[in-house]
């Protein structure tokens, strides 16, 4: 304690130095378990830099207790806002209440919490059903009324992206009797399983001759399936149409080589809309909607896949 009083002058000086800087935002990230999340982290840092925001980044190493501690530290630091990508949905009430009492707005990124919605400013995320729907609508337009037998590579059984992306796709093709899902199995969101399951689809469907299109719940499985189709002596992208979701760099590479036809982007740029909402809130207290849906953009070979690949490959995917 005595040491602290001794250093009071130094403190005051550096305090002024701190206060002079721009808006400070704390970001509690889950971890870096997937390429997508690493890209989200990179983009959040980029977005903050572009806007002149001082970003305090904390990687929770997949632990909720680390995230809670980080948020409490952000509050103690008196940041102007907190971004939170919650590792689980439960258990945020008390720390969010503390943030609210300290009048620090909290924005949730890409995942939701089960707390009351007055405890956070807004949530930014993607609508998974909508993603599936965009993929389905692309196929409907692409085949233009011709008969099409579709095989589907599902995500991890029971996971919400798998359920929602399946539902969205089915909604889009409902009412188009020319399109039919003939086989659907899980590829567990992985490249190797995607390849394996595609091989069995090809064998079961007359060596692949009866398959018109593949719908994969993520790009990784599609990349695996493309490999299997090539090994079966067919031409992916022509003999079998390939549509998938996520828009990771590798699918753009495949698209540039003519092996894939379409992908729907799950944007890792959740921070952009979050910062926009925060800027409006800081300016005149504008309350954003409680859920900000990110764009699920469709990419096809017409969108210069080689350039998209170059743009994304350094984001950490």
């Amino acid at each position: 304690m005595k040491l602290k009083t001794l250093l009071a002058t130094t403190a005051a000086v550096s305090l002024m130095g701190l206060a002079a800087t721009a808006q400070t935002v704390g970001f509690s990230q889950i971890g870096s378990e997937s390429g997508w999340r690493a890209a989200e982290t990179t983009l959040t840092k980029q977005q903050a830099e572009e806007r002149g925001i001082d970003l305090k980044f904390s990687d929770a190493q997949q632990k909720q207790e680390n995230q809670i501690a980080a948020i409490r530290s952000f509050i103690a630091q008196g940041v102007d806002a907190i971004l939170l990508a919650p590792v689980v949905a439960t258990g945020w009430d008390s720390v969010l209440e503390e943030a609210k009492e300290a009048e620090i707005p909290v924005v949730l990124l890409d995942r939701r919490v089960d707390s009351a919605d007055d405890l956070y400013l807004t949530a930014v995320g993607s609508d998974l059903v909508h993603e599936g729907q965009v993929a389905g609508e692309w196929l409907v337009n692409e085949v233009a009324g011709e008969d099409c037998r579709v095989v589907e590579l599902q995500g991890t059984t029971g996971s919400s992206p798998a359920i929602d992306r399946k539902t969205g796709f089915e909604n889009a093709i409902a009412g188009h009797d020319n399109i039919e899902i003939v086989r659907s199995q899980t590829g567990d969101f992985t490249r190797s399983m995607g390849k394996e399951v595609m091989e069995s689809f090809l064998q079961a469907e007359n060596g692949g001759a009866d398959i018109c299109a593949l719908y994969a719940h993520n790009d990784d499985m599609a990349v695996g399936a493309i490999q299997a189709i090539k090994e079966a002596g067919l031409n992916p992208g022509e003999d079998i149409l390939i549509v998938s979701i996520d828009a990771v760099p590798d699918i753009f590479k495949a698209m540039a080589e003519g092996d894939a036809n379409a992908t729907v982007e799950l944007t890792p740029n959740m921070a952009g809309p979050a910062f926009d909402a925060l800027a409006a809130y800081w300016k005149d207290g504008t309350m954003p909607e409680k859920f900000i849906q990110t764009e699920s953009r469709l990419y096809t070979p017409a969108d210069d896949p080689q350039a998209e690949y170059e743009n994304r490959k350094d984001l950490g995917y």
Partner: protein
Amino acid sequence: MNPRLYPLYATIGIFLFACLVCYIQFPFMASTRVLGNLLTDNAYLGIVAVGMTIVILSGGIDLSVGSVIAFSGVFIAVMLRDSGLPAPVIMALLLVVTTLFGAAMGGLIHALAMPPFIVTLAGMFLARGAAYMLTIDSVPIVDPFYDRLQDAYYLMPGKGRLTLIGVLMLASVAVGMIVAHRTRFGASVFALGGGVQTARLMGVRVGRTTVGIYAFSGFMAGLSGIVFSVYTGSGYPLATVGTELTAIAAVVIGGTLLTGGSGFVFGTLIGVMTMGLIQTYIVFDGSLSSWWTKIVIGGLLLLFIVLQKGLLRLTTTRLASPQAGAPV
């Protein structure tokens, strides 16, 4: 000066140094908010580390505690949801379960003359598995009693919160200090840490003490689980993975000899606070990778192990050549 106290002084010295570094860089950190956060955020770790200190003082190790904390949270959440029993009853029930669980491990360690490492490793898998058996989801706790516990805090000047769980942690440390340093049981623990044979010759009832030690650790893990469930307001079977190792690190950084027989419960509190401080510093900085926490803790651990080895050598050479040493 008693060389046995050196590690404790080193711990306190490092902690004060860390405080100073933090303060110079981030004057904000000298606030009651940060102090309150340190106590609250590390409450579960501090409590479980007190139990771990007793275990390590006896020359043992308890790897089951992280899983027991997760089990406790899930047990409480599921029981509250499904059984309709009042929360205090469920908590009491849980403490009985975890204490018995610890006692059973202690009994096995003694009866089979097995290394504690193996027995508590089995306990770790058992408790984690049991947590998964109860649920695989994260279960929210909705209960008026819990709301009261979560809102129980004293607002310190400067808006820092001295929470109930933070106070409970300090109380646990106090109890641990009394148990370890002021009771017959504590004396037996230290004796056991010095060597089972000598302890037996000194008249320590080894079996009873071993069971008592692991039962105490089990109780503390259960208490820590309750605190963790208050802290997060939910039960999650994947929670607190690896917390047993963090607790061991806190104990060693706190100046307790990993081989047993020498150490201080108070040092463990300082160890926990040091680790919390490192984490806070990294969040305040905001640009360092959070993995630096682990790197610094690893470095500190290494430092203490080397320090302990050096002290051990120092004391043995003194004993060997009494004329060179200071009078006892």
